[in-house]
C-alpha cells in the first residue's frame, strides 16, 4: 500500500470512529443532564470536552484544519 492510501485509510477510520465516539459522549451528557452529584457533573464536563476532541479529529482528518502536507516518516 502506498503512503497516500495508508493515510487515506487512517483518516477514514478516524472520522468514522470520531463520529461514533462523539455521539456516544454527547448522548451520555444529555442522558445525565439533570443527574445530581459531583462525579456526574465532572464526568459530563470531561465527556463534553472529549466530544470536542472528536470534532477536532473529524475536522483535522477531513483537512478543514491542520497541516496535511506534513513530511513525517
Amino acid at each position: 500500500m502506498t503512503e497516500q492510501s495508508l493515510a487515506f485509510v487512517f483518516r477514514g477510520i478516524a472520522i468514522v470512529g470520531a463520529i461514533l465516539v462523539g455521539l456516544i459522549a454527547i448522548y451520555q451528557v444529555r442522558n445525565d443532564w439533570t443527574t445530581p452529584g459531583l462525579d456526574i457533573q465532572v464526568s459530563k464536563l470531561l465527556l463534553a470536552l472529549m466530544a470536542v476532541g472528536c470534532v477536532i479529529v473529524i475536522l483535522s482528518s477531513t483537512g478543514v484544519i491542520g497541516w496535511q502536507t506534513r513530511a513525517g516518516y
Partner: protein
Amino acid sequence: MTAATIAHEGHHDDHALALYREVADIRLLGFVLFLISDCVLFSSFIFAYIYMRDAAPVWPPTGVGLPDANLAAVNSIILFGSGATMHFAMENWKHGTEIKFRRWMVATIVLGALFLTGQGWEYTHINATWWGSTFGAAFFTLTGMHGFHVFCGIIFLIVLLNQTLSGVYNKKQYFGLVAGTLYWHFVDVIWVFLFFLFYVW
C-alpha cells in the same frame, strides 16, 4: 436471632452505609481537586510549548519533522473510544450487570494499551529528539507525561478490576470505580488538548 438484634444490625448497616457515603463524598472532592492540580501541571507545560513556539524564529525548528496527524487521529480515537467503553463499564456496574462491566473494563484496558503502543511506534519513528529542539522538548515531555498518566491509569484499572473480582465494591459502595472513571476521562481530555497542539495547530 431475635427481632431486636436484627433491627440493630439493620441500623448498623444503615450507619455503615451513611458513613461510607460521607467518606466517599469527601474522597471524591479530594480526587477532583487532585485532578484540577494535575491539570495545572499539564497547563504549565502547554504554556511552555506555546511560549517557545511563539518565541521561535521558525517553526518547526530546523531539522525537525512534525509527527503524522493521520496516525495520531486514529490513536486519539482509540483513546477516546476507551473513554466511551469506560463509561459503559460504569453504567453496567450501576445497573448491576457485572459480567458486562468486566467486559467493558477489559476493552478499556486493551484500548489504553493499544494507544500506548501507537505512541511508542510514533516515538521510534518521529524525526525529532527530546534533546534536539524546543519542539522535541515540549512534545516528548508533554506526551511522555500523558503516556505516563495513561500507564498509571491502566494499572489503576487493573487494580480496580481485581478489586471487583474479590468483592471490594458492591452496588452501593463503589467509590474506587468512580475515581477510576474520572481519572480515565481526565486522561482522555488532556489528550484532546495535546492532539490539537501537536498535530493540528
